[in-house]
């Protein structure tokens, strides 16, 4: 059997693909550098954290966010590639939402940046749908049996952002201070935010 590209080292595969696309006149390699730089340095989960903090302090914004996630997120300047059609899922005492893409690695880039390696891994994708509470336990998260765990499989064009519960003991904090508390994992739904010390 021939050695398929999928069996090769990922870095080598990327290099081969880049060479082919360049030779075919489809890309200028500098465009890839610009894309990588954008998503490594300019776009990341701090964007999502600002959305979350604003929703915590501004009830009208929270309502807009839950009604039309795409438009409300765009109010803060975050939109575009892989955030064209956003849905925001609010975690409450009744429901804990968590997000996966079992088919590949779909993820809301404008608010969270590029997905972490584990999000793209076969074990996370396979197990979180069948045993969400077991996967949460491995992230150190226990959700009470009285709370519904709701797994969202990103199978089509919608992209999901979890609005985590605001930690207790944070009443006096500013929006900026609140944003600093919001973790990437809490916006995927595999983390919860601890009460402020």
């Amino acid at each position: 059997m021939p050695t398929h590209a999928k069996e090769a080292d990922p870095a080598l595969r990327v290099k081969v693909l880049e060479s082919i696309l360049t030779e075919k006149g489809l890309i200028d390699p500098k465009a890839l550098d610009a894309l990588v730089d954008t998503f490594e340095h300019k776009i990341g989960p701090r964007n999502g954290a600002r959305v979350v903090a604003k929703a915590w302090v501004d009830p009208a914004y929270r309502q807009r966010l839950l009604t039309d996630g795409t438009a409300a997120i765009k109010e803060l300047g975050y939109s575009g590639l892989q955030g064209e059609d956003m849905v925001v899922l609010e975690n409450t005492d009744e429901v804990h939402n968590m997000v996966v893409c079992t088919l590949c690695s779909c993820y809301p880039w404008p608010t969270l940046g590029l997905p972490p390696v584990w999000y793209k891994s076969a074990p996370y994708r396979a197990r979180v749908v069948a045993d969400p509470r077991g996967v949460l336990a491995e992230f150190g998260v226990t959700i009470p049996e009285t709370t519904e765990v709701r797994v969202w499989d990103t199978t089509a064009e919608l992209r999901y952002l979890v609005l985590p519960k605001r930690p207790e003991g944070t009443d006096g904090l500013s929006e900026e201070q609140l944003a600093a508390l919001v973790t990437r994992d809490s916006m995927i739904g595999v983390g919860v935010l601890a009460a402020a010390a």
Partner: protein
Amino acid sequence: MLLTPEIVPGLVAAGASARVAASVAPRFRVGDRVIVRNLNPTTHTRLPRYVRGRFGVIEKDYGVFAFPDTHAHGLGEKPQHCYSVRFTARELWGPAASERDTLLADLFDDYMDPA
């Protein structure tokens, strides 16, 4: 079109929604019970295997989108509604699963039949 560094910022900012501005009648309404078709194409699909043949309920109608199964192969957009469909954990994984937990998948008209 050649992808150049100059067009990257505009591309990233604008994105490319797969929504289609076509008036297509939905086959299902919120609250409808559905059964997922047992489709096993060897070509591109966005229908995960674990929901095939399972019963679910339409949770939300997200509107009209290009159908990936045809669009990915240059066979046309075949615009149709995409829905959030709710399954109970027990329907998918059997009696040992939590009776409270649920899973939602985004499924197209062509993936489902009324149940």
